[in-house]
């Protein structure tokens, strides 16, 4: 941390009016977008899964103007970052606004990520942005059907046991998971200082 030459540029909120810039197709604007919730085409190898969830505020009210971003490995644990051996048909990045869905959910159709290291559990990095949030939040999605791997995951182990459940997506149907993001309250999601 020593010897930094340049100070970081401060963060600001994404604000309420991001949709025609960041999620234009999803919201029906005449513009393109770099990524959406359809992360994996059907022929992509791996277990195809759906993850849905809502972002909930202090009062448990659903946030209808959040953006949620996913970053993950493919089913074989490969990251498509251009340096490691990625999968050219899978960018590993998804982006969804919570506005268009009738229940203000985010809906990601993707493949279940493989492990990035032998001691790590399959997981998805999540970035959360919204009006009212001055700096984005980082969290992680783990899976409730990976109990053995979760038990040794080094990041999950740094989280107090009483709060680990907030990071684990719950199976609600075959290959379909639920992951709600609670900004506050008894079930406040664990957010990381990444």
């Amino acid at each position, binding site marked *: *941390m020593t010897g*930094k*030459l*340049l*100070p*970081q*540029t*401060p*963060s*600001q*909120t994404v*604000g*309420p*009016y*991001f*949709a*025609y*810039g*960041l999620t*234009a197709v999803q919201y029906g*604007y*005449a*513009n*393109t977008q*770099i990524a959406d919730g359809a992360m994996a085409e059907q022929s992509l190898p791996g277990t195809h899964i759906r993850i849905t969830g809502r972002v909930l*505020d*202090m009062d448990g009210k659903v*946030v209808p*103007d959040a953006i949620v971003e996913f*970053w993950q*490995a493919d089913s074989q644990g490969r*990251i*498509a*970052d*251009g*340096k*490691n051996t990625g999968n050219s048909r899978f960018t590993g990045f998804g982006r969804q606004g919570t506005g268009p869905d009738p229940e203000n959910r985010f809906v990601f159709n993707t493949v279940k990520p493989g492990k*990035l290291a032998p001691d790590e559990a399959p*997981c998805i*990095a999540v*970035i959360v942005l919204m*009006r*009212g*949030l*001055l*700096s984005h*939040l980082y969290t*992680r999605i783990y899976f409730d059907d990976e109990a053995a791997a979760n038990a040794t995951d*080094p*990041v999950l182990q*740094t989280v107090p046991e009483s*709060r680990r459940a907030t990071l684990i997506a719950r199976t609600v149907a075959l290959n379909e998971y639920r992951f709600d993001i609670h*900004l*506050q309250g008894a079930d*406040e*999601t664990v*957010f*990381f*200082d*990444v």
Partner: protein
Amino acid sequence: MTADNSSKRDWETHPPYNFPAYTSSVARSPRQPLIPIKHRLLERSAPVYGHESVGPLDNDLTKNGSKGGEPLGERIIVTGRVLDEDGRPVRNTLVEVWQANAAGRYVHKVDQHAAPLDPNFLGAGRVVTDEEGRYKFYTIKPGAYPWGNHANAWRPNHIHFSLIGNTIASRLVTQMYFPGDPLLNFDPIYQSAPVGARERMISDFSLDVTEEGFALGYIFNIVLRGRNETLFEA
């Protein structure tokens, strides 16, 4: 060198999550402290959105929303470099921008401000940095607009920026402001960043960037978290 040495978010630079002067931050900020984690591959990597992700008009907001005419307002050029904390250029990285039109109105459907939409202006663009980390786009100077945060509240002129950079840990969403804007003194979003840091979000007017007879020029340099850790990984 281990991931322990990766750069952290500088909390003397960034706003606190709960900043009551910005009313909506209260209900939408976490109460538990963030839990620090060592960077692993997931945090040390990022998706690749290079030149192939940008269309030919994406860097010209004066043209990319045109329905055959020119947008109204003051044409400007915004350029600058995206650098890491060691001053190295962040190359081939995507910069996404969006903004209000000259009248202070966003195309977004939830914007109810009674100012006119401009049929020739969308207000969103994308550009990829070059080998020196430089980006440049043409647009219209955005107008100020009222909002509901407090009595007689107005947002200063600003352009929203979204970048990911070399790793998802360097993700930054920020706003670029304009020099000399009197509304900065009254804006809780701008003021949520600490004194000494918030000024980094104000662009500089530049006569060198200004194109004679065409458009005023502004420089906005962006410093993303992180250093080129791959140098140390071998």
